[in-house]
């Protein structure tokens, strides 16, 4: 495993240049440039905020940054798994040319998604500062820990998703549907106080994605350091995925090309 990681590091120029190229390709011929990747979460935020204000009388000032942070995170998770499904298929021409450690391609996807996430988070920071001020500046560095865990999670998820989708090309559609459902089982748009009154809380607690969301959103919006339980659950989920991904590494090298 260590030798494998060293190999991945050896090709760092390659996958870093791919990440850079992905960013450039996405914004090359567009007007707003990077603004486009923000448009989706911003639009959804505004709409949901307006709806929740009218129906549930949610205070916009608190809800807007909260919601947008959640939506940016959701964009990362769906992006990393959605694009992760395609990571080997879209890299087919590279795979056919020269052997590199296969984990490089999901890494490219995860890093690209993370960069978009960071840009969105920067906007969230701005909004939080404007609307409600920072509850606890000292808690902010905890966001970085959350982001690192998310990056590893994204990479491992990309490996698994990419492998499975290369074999069964319809897995991608399956993930779309699963995410539709998961959106309502993850507290992305549910404000924290609404949850206390419902009996759906247990669903949200057993959903591992909830904790992965908490470790990033809580220090940012609420100003609290996430509990040990949240970190533990997030780390455990990530480690589980990493374990599965590590088991697949040998197969990736041997088999992916045969399914392309």
């Amino acid at each position, binding site marked *: 495993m260590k030798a494998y990681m060293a190999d991945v590091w050896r090709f760092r*120029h390659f996958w870093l240049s791919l990440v850079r190229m992905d960013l450039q390709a996405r914004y090359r011929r567009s007007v707003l440039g990077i603004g486009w990747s923000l448009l989706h979460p911003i639009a959804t935020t505004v709409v949901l905020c307006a709806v929740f204000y009218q129906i549930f009388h949610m205070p916009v000032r608190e809800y807007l940054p909260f919601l947008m942070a959640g939506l940016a995170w959701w964009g990362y998770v769906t992006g990393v798994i959605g694009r992760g499904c395609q990571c080997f298929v879209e890299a087919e021409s590279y795979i056919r040319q020269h052997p590199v450690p296969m984990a490089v391609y999901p890494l490219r996807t995860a890093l690209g998604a993370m960069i978009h996430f960071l840009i969105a988070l920067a906007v969230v920071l701005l909004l939080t500062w404007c609307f409600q001020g920072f509850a606890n500046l000292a808690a902010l560095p905890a966001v970085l820990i959350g982001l690192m865990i998310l990056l590893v999670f994204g990479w491992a998820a990309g490996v698994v998703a990419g492998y499975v989708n290369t074999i069964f090309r319809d897995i991608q559609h399956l993930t779309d549907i699963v995410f539709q459902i998961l959106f309502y089982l993850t507290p992305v748009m549910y404000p924290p106080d609404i949850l206390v009154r419902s009996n759906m809380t247990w669903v949200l607690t057993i959903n591992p994605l909830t904790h992965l969301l908490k470790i990033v959103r809580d220090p940012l919006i609420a100003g609290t350091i996430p509990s040990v339980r949240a970190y533990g659950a997030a780390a455990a989920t990530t480690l589980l995925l990493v374990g599965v991904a590590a088991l697949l590494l040998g197969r990736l090298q041997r088999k992916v*090309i045969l399914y392309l």
Partner: protein
Amino acid sequence: MARIDLDHVSMTFRVREQYQITLKEFLLRGMYRRLRNPLLKVRALQDVCLRFGDGDRIGIIGGNGAGKSTLLRLLAGIYTPTRGRRIVAGRISSLFELSLGFEMEASGRQNIVYRGYLQGESPRGIRAKMQEIADFSELGRFLDVPVRYYSAGMMVRLAFSIATAIEPEILLVDEVLSAGDMAFQDKAQKRMRDMIARAKIIVIVSHDMGSLPRLCDTGVWLDRGRVRKVGPVREVIAAYREHVQGARTSESDAARDDHEPVPTGFAQPALR
């Protein structure tokens, strides 16, 4: 010290006849769909044993479908043998499917950088070689234009320039020179001869029996996935020629007698 060691290597592909299977079909395997999309086993290579070291220049010949490209990709490390052991030591540079691996939206220069990185170069190494690659390709100002606007010949020039700027210990070449115009072909052949002088092991797949003895000293004849003959290149070429012509004459004799059409003499890939 470069080394190639293939020890009883076999490569079998499992291919679905109609289209790639979906999850739904996989789960419903027991039902009638299996008959409409059966699994085929293609034994591309069977029990190949080859051993080469520094200074060997190998030419691989054989009919279409004999497994030559598969063998080359296996040597490059793109395929892992389904059986047997493959040991290849040394820095590999490969020239096959030259127009693959281009980022269409990126310029020629950027593609030089990406492909260089793909082959394991560092930024400093690429920067040092950039001018040499640009000059060899003779693309001039087109290097700053996205590759999607290139003609096929331009892409071949670019890919060839990049691949041959690396200094390999093992060079693998797969019939690429057929693309490109005559001036480029001459230039490419000369470049390859220079590379051959610098590389330690060279493996070339070619149908051009005339030029092969000039570039190689050892010949490998692949027939339906098996190594039929290994030896000095002229002997192997002669044996192959004899086989092909022998087959054609015996078939045309039979046809004259029975008034049947003469088969073309393509080797069938070993299908089961």
